[in-house]
């Protein structure tokens, strides 16, 4: 049974990272009905920026490691917020009234541009996270859990709670909800939908940056193409929970993480040795297809197929 708990813990960690990225997709979709293809790349940029700051600071300054880590994370978050803002300004805002195909194409274009900028700046080789966190292992129910994993789960939960409070308890959150229901009506109530959209992109970018750093710190090397699969999976998580629904994205992310971790752990036995863990990436896609066939509005989505 130890193996099962181990997969469960790994799945929870993976799932909280997916959930953080999925929030960016789902918030943007909720307000603009647009899939922000470049979101995965924002995550990658977050990892890269944090890595750069860490490597620069570690050599030169005698600051304690956790301060450097916080600084790197902070820089990445601020950078990615600015990046989200810029992407929306450059690629999506001018095309608000254009047919749907146009912003989709610019979105994919932006994602290619970001990927290649990263390749030119950081090279084609995978970059390892510096070895600054002393790993401590704990044992629960016969399975191992590291301090990094605990930090990831806890901070993801804190961030999600914060976001939930922001959306449901503040003026800004109310404005966001109003805009997502009807931008035209919201603007009649004195809300500037453009500001709200910018803020949404910035929040999404910040969360993505945190997720990117987590992926780098926990799963290993950062690479300029890492955003693509992460983005695809996080999007699947958002659809799983019902795109446009913030709580759904959190739940969908964690569920997808569990499915993937358990799936990859047991696929060998399930297929009688035919498929190995190379096929881990296929699970998210299967989930996406199944959800789209049987329940396109997702687990918690209220909207019907065509809108959702």
């Amino acid at each position, binding site marked *: 049974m130890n193996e099962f708990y181990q997969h469960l813990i790994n799945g929870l960690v993976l799932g909280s990272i997916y959930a953080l990225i999925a929030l960016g997709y789902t918030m943007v979709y909720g307000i603009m*009905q*647009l*899939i922000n*293809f470049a979101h995965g790349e924002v995550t990658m940029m977050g990892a890269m920026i944090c890595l750069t700051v860490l490597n620069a600071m570690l050599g030169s300054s005698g600051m304690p490691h956790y301060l450097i880590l916080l600084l790197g994370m902070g820089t990445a978050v601020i950078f990615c917020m600015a990046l989200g803002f810029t992407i929306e300004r*450059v*690629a999506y805002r*001018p*095309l*608000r*009234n*254009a*047919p*749907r*195909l*146009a*912003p*989709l*194409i*610019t979105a*994919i*274009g*932006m*994602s*290619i*541009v970001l*990927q*290649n900028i990263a*390749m*030119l700046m950081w090279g084609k080789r995978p970059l390892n996270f510096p070895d600054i966190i002393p790993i401590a292992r704990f044992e629960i129910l016969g399975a191992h859990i590291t301090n990094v994993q605990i930090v990831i789960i806890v901070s993801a939960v804190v961030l999600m709670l914060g976001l939930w409070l922001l959306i449901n308890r503040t003026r800004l959150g109310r404005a966001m909800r109003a805009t997502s229901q*009807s*931008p*035209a*009506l919201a*603007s009649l109530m004195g809300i500037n*939908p*453009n500001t709200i*959209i910018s803020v949404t992109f910035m929040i999404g970018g910040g969360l993505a940056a945190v997720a990117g750093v987590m992926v780098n710190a926990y799963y290993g090397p950062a690479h300029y193409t890492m955003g*693509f*699969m992460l983005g*695809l999976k996080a*999007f*699947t998580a958002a*659809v799983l929970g019902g795109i446009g629904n913030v709580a759904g994205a959190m739940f969908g992310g964690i569920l997808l993480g569990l499915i993937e971790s358990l799936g990859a752990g047991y696929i060998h036995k399930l297929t009688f*040795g*035919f*498929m*190995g863990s*190379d*096929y881990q*990436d*296929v699970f*998210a*896609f299967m989930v*996406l*297809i199944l959800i*789209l*066939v049987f329940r*396109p509005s997702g687990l918690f989505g209220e909207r019907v*197929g*065509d809108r959702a």
Partner: protein
Amino acid sequence: MTMLHNSLLQRWPQLKQDRRAVIAAWLLIALALALLPFVTDAALGRSWVRIVDFALLYILLALGLNIVVGYAGLLDLGYIAFYGVGAYLYALLASPHFGLHLPVWAILPLGALLAAIFGMLLGAPTLKLRGDYLAIVTLGFGEIIHIFLRNLDKPVNITNGPQGVNLIDPISIAGINLHQTQQFLGITFYKDYLYYYLFLTIALLIIFICIRLQDSRIGRAWVAIREDEVAAAAMGINTRNIKLLAFGMGATFGGISGGLFAGYQGYISPESFILNESIIVVCMIVLGGMGNLFGVILGAILLTTLPEALRYLGELQQWLFGRIVLDPADYRMLLYGLALVLMMLLRPAGILPSVRRKRELQPTPVVAEHEKDTVYDSTR
């Protein structure tokens, strides 16, 4: 041929002036296309004949994707997967890998059929939803096919994994092996020339099919769906089936060109069928002009020849600075991405816009005026 010539020559004086000009122009184009490999070889070298061959393959791909994106308005970001399916089918049925050596006329239709089936399978669950889903599902599909191609070498070796398949049979037609230099009427036809004529024939055939499709009942249904799906459904169009047809047909063309690619290249590996390739084909369509055949062809030609021409920039740097400062190959995808964004912002209908598409891709001024202060149309 001579019969046709004679009758045309006899009728020539009776034809109207503009009709004559049209026929003369077509004959000139035909002559230019027939002589193209010889001229290219003489002027730029054999490697450019090869590039021209690849340009033709990309034209086939772009025309296929144009049906999906240009006519029906569905963004397919995993199009290269169908190309991969066609290529792998050819490779497996005509190579020592399984010891099978089927003739090309048996494989190409099979590849087309298999690609179409894959297309339909992928389209069926997603096409009743909105376009965004299709885009992301196709994106994932392309990646999944790539994963399968790379990993299906164990426990049963089907695709031979990352090494790919080697020693694929060359295409041979009517007993003529296109990989061997042939002599006709005292003229030497090298391998790349022979493939050029094969690809050109198929490209012309597909262009003809596309032109006929454009104004057919189906073609008009595609355009209607692209412009307003609800209105199209109200007119009695079975939107899901018609979209599925577009998807399947695009996949078919992809499968055919994949088979041709495998036969021409002689070896294939999973790395030929990655996301970037799909993006490049989308780029060709967007750059040239979605929905306009000649725009799409222009886009395909531009994007296959420009990167090759950019290589000279590398050589120029080598000569100027003694080393390559900026490797053009590294900038290729960046430029493509920028092209996608800039084209959509500045000239959304492409270099050679299709008339109808142009009208559609520009926001109507009335709406723009009315919507100036609000964010966007709440009815969307």
